[in-house]
């Protein structure tokens, strides 16, 4: 029952989700191997080797793996897949991009975004944006799995696994990188943040959104999110949207400001550990899922909250 975890990294360091994916893998076996595929990625490989529970780190270091293109990555994973019963990666945009290719090339199903391991063949995964949980059993000999990282603890340090180089298949040469604009925001990524401050139509306009919410987010080290209504009204760009058709988040703390709580929005945030709602409408549906509700004028309450923290 060998297990392979595909590390997500930027060549220098591991992304946090790699640790959670390893944790999920360690529910299926005692140890797991980790594949670090990249270019000049030895630092990331050393970081992977120091995680607890890692048997061996396999490193594929090649210029054509630098940008993590799905085609080259899938061909690499398939080339080393023999002998593994499980192949896991985080269900981030990185993992979601290449893992279905791996599954298709191995002629097996992918089990997307598991939130729990039931037994060796059976997994729980959210469907309908988390409004239902499906328990599915795989009939395939190899299980290709992406992991909802917010559902598993982060694996700890303390390992000292051997690092072994593996050869990468040739560059497929069908993709080139034109540009990469990673957000320069000091704030954490919406999908991975421990605290999210989210605003809705109640803020009135984009200027108010920034003026009222940014100081609170700064104080908490939180990511900023928004309801679809706020996005549609042009307060903030689409990538702020939390909800069924936007981002699904599950932070430790979700503060919903001026958000009524449409089904669409609740689907994207109701797995948050603690939900705070601030809204002037005492009957807003958001209060039905909020752990702490505060009814009143957000323009007074949010600055007070920011000052009190």
């Amino acid at each position, binding site marked *: 029952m060998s297990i392979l975890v595909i590390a997500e990294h930027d060549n220098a360091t591991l992304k946090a989700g790699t640790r959670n994916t390893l944790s999920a893998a360690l529910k299926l076996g005692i140890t797991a191997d980790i594949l670090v595929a990249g270019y000049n990625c030895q630092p990331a490989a050393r970081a992977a080797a120091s995680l607890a529970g890692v048997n061996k780190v396999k490193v594929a270091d090649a210029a054509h793996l630098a940008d993590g293109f*799905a*085609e080259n990555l899938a061909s690499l994973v398939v080339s080393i897949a023999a002998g593994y019963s499980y192949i896991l990666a985080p269900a981030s*945009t990185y993992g*979601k*991009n290449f893992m*279905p*290719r791996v599954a*298709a*090339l191995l002629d097996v*199903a*992918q*089990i*997307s975004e598991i939130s729990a391991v039931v037994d060796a063949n*059976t997994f729980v995964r*959210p*469907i*309908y944006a*988390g*409004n*239902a949980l*499906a*328990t*599915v*059993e*795989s*009939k395939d000999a190899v299980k290709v799995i992406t992991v909802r990282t917010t559902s598993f603890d982060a694996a700890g340090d303390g390992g000292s696994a051997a690092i072994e180089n593996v050869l990468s298949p040739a560059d497929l040469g*069908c*993709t*080139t*990188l*034109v*540009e*990469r*604009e*990673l957000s320069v925001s000091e704030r954490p990524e919406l*999908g*991975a943040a421990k*605290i999210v401050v989210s605003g809705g139509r109640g803020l009135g306009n984009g200027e108010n959104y920034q003026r009222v919410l940014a100081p609170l987010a700064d104080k908490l080290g939180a990511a900023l999110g928004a309801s679809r209504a706020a996005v549609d009204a042009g307060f903030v*760009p*689409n*990538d702020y*949207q939390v909800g069924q*058709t936007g981002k699904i988040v599950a932070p*430790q703390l979700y503060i919903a400001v001026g958000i009524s709580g449409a*089904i669409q929005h609740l689907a994207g945030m*109701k797995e948050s*550990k*603690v*939900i705070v709602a601030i809204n002037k409408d005492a009957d807003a549906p958001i*209060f*039905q*899922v*909020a*752990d702490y*509700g*505060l009814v009143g004028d957000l323009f007074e*309450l949010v600055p007070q*909250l920011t000052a*009190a*923290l």
Partner: protein
Amino acid sequence: MSMKILVPIKRVVDYNVKIRVKADNSAVELDNVKMSMNPFDEIAVEEAVRLKEAGVAVEVVVVTCGIAAAQDILRSALALGADRAILVEVDVAQSETLQPLAVAKLLKALVGQEQPGLVICGKQAIDDDANQTGQMLAALQGWPQATFASKVVIADGKATVTREVDGGLETLAVTLPAVISTDLRLNEPRYATLPNIMKAKKKPLNILTAASLGVDVAPRLITRSVNEPPKRTAGIRVGDVAQLVDKLKNEPKII
């Protein structure tokens, strides 16, 4: 350029419907529930139609794999401007267990017949949230892919696609033919006008069977049960900011 675009679409529970799990926990209730085209697929249809309007493509073919009733979403896509539709019909039991790998294989067979220069699909269906079919089709074809697209430019035999990735945007150039999957920001689909809805009724809709395409659609994953997630109950109302801060600092110890 005389490129044809194939757009695979799926019929799903409308995104405004609050879904219910069946009493026997076997599945989500679909009887008497409003069904619609998957929102990401609607964006895919819109993008394909825009590429045709811009003279980049000559024909937009929409396809779905599903039950006879799925013709309704094909007609919706035709009303948005697609030229022709294909239904790969399966029976109700098959449709309940039709999974991305099988759909990708059906689409591969259709790609063989239709020879499109580009496939544009939604990044995921909002029912099973699998996010697999486009990537699987690309792999089976040996084609490049550009998932989670927020901007698509087609020129000189290449698609230059801006992708929404965690933490920002990434722009790739992929050789054609390729598979592109749509994210939310790519475009805002138009509304079908009444004259276009009328015209759509006369556009060709061809019905095939999975068997005629030589594809085994047997499921690889067996659903053992479907459950409601643990219910969130309303917590407490706090009277003022001081009380809220006290709760956050002392009860869940969140901050």
